[in-house]
């Protein structure tokens, strides 16, 4: 389909000739101009490979192309046409193209909420029969398919699997005799010690991304209220106005007002991600709570090449209540893959997707070469990762894979919250930090919006606690 209209607007000579031919064919039909594009595509030579189009973010295209080449070598009857999507607006480009009948076969999305919107409009193919045919439930991590459900049907497969995580500066931890805190008492002791020494306990900032305040709400909801309470709230059994959530936000705000997060509220609002990493690397801050998506970026801030002798370590943010397990891994989905309902080649498209997700060793190799954008939800083992990969990254991914497959997971806001409640979550929390809204009112507002969206069927499927 991308042969007719590609997202980046470039038209090759071959494509121009093809399009013109299809246009002329269309003029001969009374049906209009759009129909012939598919008709002409269907009129391909019998021995030509079936073309499956895949639109993907323009970053890391060379790694994706390597994957495609590998697949095509094994499957000469299928040609995957990889087309780059502009960064930032990819979801809008895809949605527009799909509605115009000119979208790709393999549909990327920035997360479950976007894909659910497309599914609701009937633009995505139901994948349940393929999931059964390919036995995905047993080959992917056990929770993976649950995140791709909309109104009880499977429409999307997680592509970028991620988790909130703590990074710390090894040097300052060694020099101060600190260890990664596992509970509230340990964290508060470390924070007070650090503040006394002029070190910010948590480097943090949303200068680059206002909505990334949702990381902290995610961590405090999971690590204070706990994953069981969150599951109950996400399924409507309890409300977000429950005291457990209010207390979680009160604690977050207490730390924020004390300057433990980012140094001050003002600094938190304006500090960039680069500055955040640099603060840990040069010892201005002890650690940060962000996510696995940063693992690939940290090397440029730590070590000789960055002009320091520090190294990064990782742990999970502490549990803030005794009855919340430590460590806990809140699951997030950074991107998903779906199939267009208008695809003419569903079997070949799904054949590629099955192959794409089928071999953890191949996926692990891709992560080593292409970075953490390729963290598919498959059961990794340490032996899957090549020596070229930073052993800390391999350790994080292996731990994450093992922990979540045994039920040790939580829920990230950007994956499991419905759109309006999610926007409320990261916008209104800023008013809590600026003392314009109390934690109780914040949670009450969230409960009200969530209840509305739950009634409208817009809440993504929460992974059941017993899925493992």
């Amino acid at each position, binding site marked *: 389909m991308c042969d007719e209209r590609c997202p980046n607007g470039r038209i090759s000579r071959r494509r121009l000739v093809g399009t013109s031919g299809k246009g002329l064919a269309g003029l001969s039909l009374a049906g209009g101009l759009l129909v012939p594009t598919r008709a002409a595509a269907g009129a391909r030579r019998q021995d030509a490979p079936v073309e499956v189009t895949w639109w993907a973010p323009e970053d890391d295209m060379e790694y994706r192309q390597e994957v495609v080449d590998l697949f095509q070598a094994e499957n000469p009857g299928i040609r995957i046409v990889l087309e780059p999507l502009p960064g930032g607006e990819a979801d809008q480009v895809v949605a527009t193209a*799909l*509605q115009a009948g000119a979208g790709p076969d393999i549909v990327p999305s920035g997360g479950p909420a976007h894909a659910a919107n497309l599914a609701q409009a009937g633009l995505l193919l139901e994948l349940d029969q393929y999931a059964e045919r390919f036995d995905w439930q047993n080959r992917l991590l056990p929770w993976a398919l649950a995140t791709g459900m909309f109104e009880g049907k499977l429409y999307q497969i997680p592509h970028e699997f991620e988790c909130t995580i703590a990074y710390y500066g090894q040097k300052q931890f060694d020099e101060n005799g600190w260890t990664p805190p596992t509970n509230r008492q340990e964290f508060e002791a470390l924070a007070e010690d650090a503040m006394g020494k002029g070190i910010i306990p948590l480097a943090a900032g*949303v200068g680059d991304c206002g909505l990334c305040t949702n990381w902290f709400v995610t961590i405090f909801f999971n690590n204070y209220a706990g994953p069981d309470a969150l599951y109950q709230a996400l399924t409507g059994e309890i409300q977000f106005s429950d005291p457990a959530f209010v207390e979680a936000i009160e604690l977050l705000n207490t730390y924020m007002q004390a300057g433990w997060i980012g140094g001050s509220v003002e600094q938190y*609002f304006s500090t960039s991600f680069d500055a955040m990493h640099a603060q840990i690397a040069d010892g201005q801050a002890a650690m940060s709570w962000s996510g696995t998506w940063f693992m690939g970026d940290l090397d440029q801030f730590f070590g000789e090449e960055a002009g320091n002798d520090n190294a990064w370590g990782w742990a999970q943010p502490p549990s803030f209540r005794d009855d919340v397990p430590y460590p806990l891994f809140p699951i997030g989905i950074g991107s998903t893959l779906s199939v267009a309902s208008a695809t003419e080649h569903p079997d070949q498209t799904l054949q590629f997707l099955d192959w794409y997700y089928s071999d953890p060793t191949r996926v692990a190799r891709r992560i080593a070469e292409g970075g953490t954008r390729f963290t598919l939800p498959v059961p990794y083992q340490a032996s899957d990762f090549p020596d070229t990969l930073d052993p800390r990254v391999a350790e994080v991914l292996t731990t994450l894979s093992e922990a979540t497959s045994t039920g040790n997971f939580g829920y990230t806001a950007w994956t499991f919250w419905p759109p309006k409640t999610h926007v409320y979550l990261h916008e209104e929390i800023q008013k809590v930090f600026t003392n*314009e809204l109390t934690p109780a009112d914040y949670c009450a507002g969230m409960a009200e919006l969530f209840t509305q969206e739950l009634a409208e069927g817009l809440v993504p499927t929460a992974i059941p606690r017993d899925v493992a």
Partner: protein
Amino acid sequence: MAVHLPVARARTAGTERVGRRRLVRQRTVAGWLCLAPFLVVNLLVIVGPSVATVYYSFTDWTGVGGAAFVGLENFRQLAGDGNFHNALAHVAQWTAFFLTVPIAMALLGSYLLSQVKRFQILFRLIYFVPYTIASVVTASVWENIYDGNRGLVPLLADAGVSPLEGVALLGNKQTALPAVAWVDTWHWWGFLVIVFLAAMQSVDAELYDAVRIDGGGRWREFRDVTIPAIRPTLVFVVLITVIGSLLAFDYIYIMTQGGPAGATDVVGTLLYERAFRLFEAGYAAAMGLSMTLLSAVLMVVYLQLRRRGWEV
């Protein structure tokens, strides 16, 4: 011959008239033919989406799939939307800032530049360069300058000058909007300098001589000659400033995304969020249409002033 001459003249005149009419018709047709491609493009990319926006503003469209007609519901909701009111208030502040700071700077800059005889082209170029830089680049440069850890403020504090020490300009609710507006001003005012300078250069030099003979100084020259003489340009700049302010989006979206806590939200950022994060494209269309109506009202006021003889 003498009898036939007027008839011949009349015939010749009639033939000329017919010929001229044909020529005019041919030129008209040629003109429309030349214009046709642009009209078609205009119809496709301006009129089409505009009509679609009007239609969708009366629907509950999510941005994908079908849309149900909801009448005036979006506009009713807009009237009671606190976030929209907050954004409108910021648009008003933004407009007030741009009607004063960059225009005043540009008037001063262009007046001073008009007095410069040597290297004027070089100075014009220097003033104009920021206008040619992409907003993403300008915003990134200024984000670094404003950075509370590595920017200008801590640098000055290290040098013993610390009027703003500890203040993160983009993180403070009071300073964030002016801080972003200043960045846009830095990019915009050089353009205004060139526009005003061009207008000033067409002012009759004898008027300045008259002021000098009257014993007036530079200030009187500026107030009594320059400003009245460039009034049409000034009013035009005011008009494009107001309309541009209603459309403010890029610098705010890049630098603060409307934060902290909504302190820099304008209608443009709110509209984007509604359409693409909340999937409320119908509501966003209503928001956009409201801003268009506001612009239209301003245009009508401008045209009325012109009709009443104002030299604007």
